[in-house]
């Protein structure tokens, strides 16, 4: 086990092209252990594509992703998950015909720790408790409410016992009380030792939670740093107000 020094996740010059569209254009950043790190940007900026590239759901066209100093390029989604890097999906897609508990059990049995028997059952209960789904454990996932589905999405990812958890818009569609709850959960997860990457639309949540963030626009990184600084960057303001940033204005 190498000493945990330096970034836990290093993204360097990652590009992804879909046909004629350059969805990610040479994006680089580093995430430190136990950070809450946000990725923000207008619609179509390439945030979700970035997450897909991180976990190997799609292969980046070029560039490299290093997780705990190991190159992830070429690894499949499941191989990356078993190494401890997992994501949630913005559009939740649980196994609808399975119970909530079984949905979580998949990650417990096949994730990083591959728990079995009593240990697996304990872990399922623990995840159910953390995401406040214990009372819904035996319900079919197909009948859950939006808020419960969002929590189940986090629970499924959490079940794989990740070191880095990538959350894709887990607060979208939630009411203010639920957002407060979700923010509390994210903090608690970080305090228990996880590193959190999140894509989020709620600027309030981003500013309140994140240690640092990057801003993407049209697949390019246009700003990086502490929320208070980065959110005031002229290029970021321009991107959010719909102003076309001048080419090369921010390098």
């Amino acid at each position, binding site marked *: 086990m190498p000493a945990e020094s330096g970034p836990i996740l290093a993204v360097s010059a990652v590009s992804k092209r879909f046909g004629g569209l350059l969805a990610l254009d040479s994006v680089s950043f580093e995430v430190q252990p136990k950070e809450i790190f946000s990725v923000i940007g207008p619609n179509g900026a390439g945030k979700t594509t970035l997450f897909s590239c991180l976990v190997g*759901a799609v292969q980046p066209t070029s560039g490299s992703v290093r997780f705990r100093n190991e190159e992830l390029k070429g690894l499949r989604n*499941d191989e990356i*998950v078993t190494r401890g890097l997992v994501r949630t999906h913005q559009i939740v*897609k649980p196994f609808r015909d399975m119970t909530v508990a079984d949905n979580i059990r998949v990650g417990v049995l*096949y994730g*990083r720790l591959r728990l079995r028997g009593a240990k697996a059952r304990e872990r399922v209960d623990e995840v159910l408790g953390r995401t406040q789904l214990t009372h819904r454990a035996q319900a079919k996932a197909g009948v859950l409410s939006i808020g419960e589905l969002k929590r189940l999405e986090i629970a*499924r990812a959490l079940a*794989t016992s990740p070191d880095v958890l990538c959350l894709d818009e887990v607060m979208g569609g939630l009411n203010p009380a639920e957002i407060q709850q979700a923010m509390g959960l994210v903090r608690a997860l970080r305090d228990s030792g996880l590193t959190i990457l999140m894509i989020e639309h709620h600027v309030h949540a981003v500013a309140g939670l994140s240690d640092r963030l990057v801003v993407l626009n049209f697949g390019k990184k246009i700003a990086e740093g502490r929320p208070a600084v980065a959110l005031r960057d002229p290029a970021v303001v321009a991107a959010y107000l719909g102003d076309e940033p001048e080419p090369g204005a921010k390098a």
Partner: protein
Amino acid sequence: MSALLRRHPLLPVGLAFGAFLLFAPVFAERGTENDLWNMSFFVVLAAAWNLLGGFAGQVSLGYSAFVGIGAYTTVLLAKAGWSPWLTLPVGAALAAAFSVVVGLPTFRLRGPYFTIATIGVGEAVRVIASGLDFTGGSSGLRMPPGTFDFTANYYGMVGLALVTLVLVAWLQQHAFGLALEAIRQDIDGAEALGVNSTQVKLQAHAISSALVAVAGGLFATNFQYISPGSVFDFRLSLTIVLMPIVGGMGTLTGPVLGAMLFSYLQIKLLASPALRDSYLFIYGGLLIVVMLFEPRGIVGLLDRLRARLPRRRTQAVAEAHGAG
């Protein structure tokens, strides 16, 4: 035990039927025994296919290749002086190896694309088997004399059917079963939670093809003669797929019900020339009706009926099962 019963209310019925099968040779006539042998053969095929096709949702139309591998291995090794029983594990191992060779490229395909590719594999195997010298070509091969023992073969097949059902039920209760179910519902989602879908599918394919190959070996010993026309028979490969589909894909009882229905159909078909000529009407019609009205087959139909029954009676039925 009571949890097991609640999960599988039909278990006592199944055990009772299993006991009946074991003692059948004591009192039943030879014709009946033959029918029961055939039913057990069908149960193995249906339940083994269901592991990959039903639980994991990977519908393969090429399973007769594994019956063929098992049957040819048994005959060829028996001709070389082996005891037929010792040939069974060899056939199973060869079939499992072949299933991996076929699975490695085809499991990269999804859903119906996989199904189409398996039609191609089945065709290729049949063409090649008819062209090879050591398979006796289209004229077939005969088992060496002195290898026929119906009672032993009967117990072999009934035993294999029970082993298959217990194995499938056991796998379903464990991590492997959950992974298959996850793959069936959403293969990307399963991978996103760490399931190596290709590996799991290959394992399911290997286990089920090995079971089918053992059944093929027993088939060869029982009939003493095999040819591409008998083991790669279109009706057989059709029956393998139809039994679990009509019975209820992805359930434990479905393939058994399907095997019972189709072994009964087979008896009727063989008895009447008119019906024999219209078996494709019957099989195709069943497939159409099931797909249009109840894709979960007989099991789905029973579930629907049970849901219509008043609640109290359902409970009474469950208790009656529990007491039996």
